[in-house]
């Protein structure tokens, strides 16, 4: 008994957290067995076992792979473009006061507005192919990256900048030696936020207008009342998002290990 309580005490957090999720899944699974659902609700109901079964079916029938592939391409290309544009722009805005002042109204306005509002426009311009989704991912992920890079540059230690300047460093060298290493943790935070926005762009873009992709699969399944397929799609998105966020968080704590704690909390 004593060893059991000790065992529990040491792992209380994991047991309670994992147990709660398991409990919810169990309840979800047993609901239709315990109470007979009215027809109206039974239509929208599925159980975890059904979801896993239909996931297996989709994989075996080779249906889900192409959807995942299209969504992954949209995600990666869009996010890649956002990094290519956002980082340099953030660095330049952080270093140049004039550019900062001139671009700030646009950055503030676009950052405050959910960029999803441009989806119909992007579809009108680029059609329902892959590019309208890549662009919505791009505009979604651009601003978190840009703003966090900018904040990183702004929060650089002035003393360090002055030291390398005094030793005759050029703007480029200052950037390379002081500014960039200092803003890396901020950039990683930006990346974490950008991943969330990018996934949002993929999902919604594909709901609205597309002929391939996981979002398309979810929307199509919902209109056909295939609720288990909806949950397969949702579960894949959830898994991807959790895995990526976790990865970036690991990176974050690794890169900011040398910093004092007050900076880490940011």
């Amino acid at each position, binding site marked *: 008994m004593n060893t059991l309580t000790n065992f529990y005490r040491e792992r*209380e*957090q994991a047991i*309670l*957290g*994992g*147990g*709660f*999720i398991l409990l919810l899944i169990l309840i979800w699974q047993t609901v239709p067995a315990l109470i007979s659902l009215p027809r109206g609700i039974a239509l*929208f109901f599925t159980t975890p076992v059904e979801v896993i079964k239909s996931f297996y079916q989709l994989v075996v029938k080779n249906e889900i792979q192409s959807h995942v592939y299209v969504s992954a391409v949209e995600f990666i290309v869009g996010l890649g473009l956002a990094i290519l544009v956002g980082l340099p722009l953030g660095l330049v805005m952080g270093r140049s*006061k*004039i550019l900062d*002042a*001139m*671009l*700030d*109204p*646009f950055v*503030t*306005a*676009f*950052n*405050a*507005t*959910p960029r*999803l*509002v*441009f*989806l*119909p*426009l992007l579809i*009108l*311009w680029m059609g329902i192919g892959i590019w309208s989704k890549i662009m919505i991912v791009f505009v979604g992920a651009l601003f*978190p990256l840009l*703003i*966090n890079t900018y*904040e990183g540059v702004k929060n650089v230690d002035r003393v360090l900048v002055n030291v390398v300047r005094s030793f005759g460093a050029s703007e480029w060298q200052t950037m390379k030696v002081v500014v960039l290493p200092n803003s890396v943790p901020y950039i990683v*935070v930006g990346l974490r*936020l950008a991943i*969330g926005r990018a*996934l*949002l762009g993929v*999902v*919604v873009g594909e*709901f*609205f207008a597309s002929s391939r992709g996981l979002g398309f699969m*979810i*929307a199509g*399944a*919902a*209109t056909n009342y295939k*609720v288990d397929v*909806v949950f397969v*799609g*949702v579960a894949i*998105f*959830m898994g991807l*998002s*959790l895995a990526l*966020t976790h990865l970036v968080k690991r990176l974050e704590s690794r890169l900011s290990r040398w910093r004092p704690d007050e900076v880490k909390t*940011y």
Partner: protein
Amino acid sequence: MAFKSFFSDYQRLLLGMVSVIGVVLLWELVFTYVIPLNPFFFTKPSLIAAAFKEQLVSGTLWKDVAISSKAFLLGFSLAVIVGIPIGVFMGWRRRAEYTLDPFFTALYASPLVALAPLLIIIFGVGLTGKVALIFLLAVFPFIFNVFAGVKCTDRLLVNVVRSFGGREKDIYFKVILPSIMPYIVAGARIAIGRGIVGILVTEFYAASEGIGFAISRFGDTYRLPDMFAAIMVLMIMAVVLTEGLRKLETFLTPWKTGQEAR
């Protein structure tokens, strides 16, 4: 001299205004004199302004805005009512934190909009579906910000209330609630953005009225000036709400820069 100091004081503001006016002018001039305008593909500021004025006068836009706002307010209030108590509970009770934190973190980190089609087929294309999605998206910023706020509550204040014979209720209302206010505001700022996403997604996907529906319908019918006018209205609303809350946040906690999760 006076001019010079005026310029340096307001340099940021002036440069910002110059660049905004410059972009609008350039946009207008380029499409008037340089590139012939294809009205099915692009538009220019003068046409947008005309469309905006027409919609203001006829009042159709306001109707759409009102319909979306109603859904937004309902979903958002529900998120406040549900989110804050859960956040306080999680922050105050260690076991509640252990139990609920992994589950809610998983939900917060995942793109819950993926559930939108399901919510729409369950609740219909009307108000309920919208409110459900907005609530689902907006509740987690409240939970987690309040949770962080309670965690940061000054233990000393709690002990003072206890020492002077205060009850659990006094701790909640005299210590915890005041000290989590800035966190609630920060949560509200994030929740507003997510709530607007909820409106847009449900209205793009399936709706018969609302600002998101208006934008997507104008796009489908190639009425680009009207579409840009509607987008502008949404942008202005989003900027006013978010920046207003950001100001409130710096007013409540001047020491906290509050940059995370913008």
